[in-house]
């Protein structure tokens, strides 16, 4: 109890971080289901996966990889700024991360729009007319990149909230775990994209 008679707020940073890692592992296993399905279907439809992969724009996939890697750097620099007591820098680093997240989503929107125009989109007759292996490839592509894009949006929201808490002084350098955990989530989004790039964009 404090002198004023109020209980000090409970904090368990190690437990909080452990909980976040467990959550991240459950997310990893969620995506692993898609990756295992990819491996199974690719082993059955090697040539068709090869042809379907050629329809994706590897340059855009690589560009988006650099965008996400850079956003991981800005998050890491933001967390570092908080941990060394430079709280005022945090909103700038996280703001840069949000801009990069928007850039990533914009590139993704361009890709999906192009695929829609070419008929390579779920529900389009052009896609339904393709061989089974190519339909499976695009089904997995839209499922994996769509689920990943939802995680990008969620990560941007979580980081925005964490940065706002830092800006209001509710998360400080002596207790940075909220921003650290938000950063961990963002890095996981990056890790998943690192795996998606070779599976889909370099499949040809």
């Amino acid at each position: 109890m404090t002198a004023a008679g109020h209980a000090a707020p409970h904090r368990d940073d190690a437990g909080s971080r452990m909980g976040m890692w467990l959550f991240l592992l459950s997310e990893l296993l969620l995506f692993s289901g898609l990756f295992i399905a990819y491996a199974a279907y690719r082993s059955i439809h090697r040539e068709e996966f090869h042809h379907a992969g050629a329809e994706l724009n590897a340059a855009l996939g690589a560009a988006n990889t650099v965008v996400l890697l850079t956003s991981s750097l800005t998050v890491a620099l933001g967390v570092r700024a908080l941990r060394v007591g430079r709280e005022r820098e945090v909103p700038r680093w996280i703001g840069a991360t949000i801009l990069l997240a928007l850039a990533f989503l914009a590139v993704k929107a361009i890709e999906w729009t192009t695929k829609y125009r070419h008929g390579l989109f779920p529900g389009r007759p052009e896609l339904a007319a393709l061989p089974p292996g190519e339909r499976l490839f695009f089904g997995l592509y839209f499922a994996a990149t769509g689920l990943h894009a939802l995680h990008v949006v969620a990560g941007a929201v979580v980081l925005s909230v964490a940065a706002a808490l830092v800006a209001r002084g509710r998360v400080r350098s002596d207790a940075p775990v909220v921003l650290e955990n938000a950063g961990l989530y963002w890095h996981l989004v990056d890790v998943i994209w690192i795996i998606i790039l070779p599976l889909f964009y370099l499949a040809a």
Partner: protein
Amino acid sequence: MSAPPTPHAELPARTLVGVWSALVALTGALVAANRYAPGNPGIVATMVITPAKVSLVLWYFMHLREEGRAVRYMLLTAACTITIFVGLLMLDYSFR
């Protein structure tokens, strides 16, 4: 719960920038390998470069170097589980 992680010195910003540079360079190498050496060389490059990139992000950006054994073993267990599933799957399809 494992013992709390040992305090580590904060990484300099230039180290983080160096890790980012390595990640971008590895991405370039991966794309180049798959473009100019398709087939088995590209697959080998993917199998080497992708885990290397993931490890760099985990170790430096996600501060795995600061975590205790419990988190490291959890990650290792998840990676082994996924590898076993994919391995069994490939064995199944290989001998059908």
